[in-house]
């Protein structure tokens, strides 16, 4: 097996996790930047639609590194998918598969369930729930919490911040409640 074939395989957690962790010192040492991604959404608001709201009145250009960073993530997604894609189907745990199948999600061939994440669903109830409503919660929730998985669960916890522990527990709790109580209802609604 050559190196490219090896890279094309899904990366195990013990390779991916430490690499993600290295983002913390990389950003700190390259330019004294604290790792955080959801802040980019705020900078986009400040740059495009500040609408005289005090929360969006600040020098977003000083924070533009964050926009370069997320542009890079987008580009990285492109590179990984178009040049380094896994030739095989994703392996999803059997118990998750059967739980999801009973809720109507049955296509386990891609990274995302094609029944939901399909451009033809944009103007449907599925799109409204899984793109518009879900996206709104991400943007509203992360800013209300002052950070997301990167800013709190990785950067904040790495720096031993109590507030980030509270936030991380809340993220997980919200996700658990949603997965087990709201998601079955939502999937039934759109099936």
């Amino acid at each position, binding site marked *: 097996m050559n190196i490219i074939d090896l890279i094309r395989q*899904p990366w195990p957690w013990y390779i991916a996790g430490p690499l993600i*962790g290295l983002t913390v010192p990389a950003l700190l040492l390259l330019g004294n930047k604290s790792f955080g991604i959801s802040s980019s959404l705020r900078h986009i608001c400040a740059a495009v639609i500040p609408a005289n709201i005090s929360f969006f009145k600040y020098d977003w250009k000083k924070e533009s590194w964050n926009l370069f960073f997320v542009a890079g993530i987008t580009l990285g997604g492109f590179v990984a998918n178009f040049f380094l894609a896994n030739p095989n189907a994703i392996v999803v745990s059997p118990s998750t598969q059967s739980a999801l199948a009973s809720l109507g999600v049955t296509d386990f061939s891609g990274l995302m369930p094609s029944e939901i994440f399909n451009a033809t669903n944009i103007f449907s109830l599925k799109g409204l729930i899984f793109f518009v409503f879900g996206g709104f919660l991400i943007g509203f929730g992360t800013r209300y919490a002052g950070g997301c998985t990167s800013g709190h669960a990785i950067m904040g916890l790495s720096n031993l911040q109590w507030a980030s522990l509270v936030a991380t527990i809340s993220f997980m709790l919200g996700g658990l409640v949603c997965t087990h109580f709201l998601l079955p209802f939502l999937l039934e609604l759109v099936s």
Partner: protein
Amino acid sequence: MEKLKNRFASAIHDGDLDLLMEDGSDGANQQRTAESFIGNLKYLIVGVLFGVVFVKAEIVSWFRIQEMFRFDSFHMFGVMGSALAVGMLSIWLIKKFKISTLSGEEVSIPEKTFNKGQIYGGLLFGFGWAITGACPGPLFAQIGSGFLAVGITLLSAIGGTWVYGWLRSRLPH
């Protein structure tokens, strides 16, 4: 001057100023010297590497997030746990050996202070995470990997951030 004073007084009155500074700790830029477009390209490169890891470790997958919230796989817990361990060790080393930045500045990380927003906002984000299978980072990586419909999710997330900024002084913190 008077106007400025009034503005400050009202800002302090509803705790706006404190909160604004608090929130500024997320993704904060503590570097004193300004950076050019070319200088900013290094963050683009870090982003590219990061995006590749996101996709290759399948963190961008809706299924992996479902497995995590159903406790059916160790993968996501392993990723987050080991990322955290490396992050923690790096910050400890940087502080211990007073390692300075590329431009010779002292590394400085703003504190994150607790407010109730971390609970309310955290729970709301958790719901969004489970529905979309993405946190803000993977959103960008998903779009790059060709799931263009996720562009709608991103636009809506920007909208959600905007609505938060608009309602902020009326929300419990």
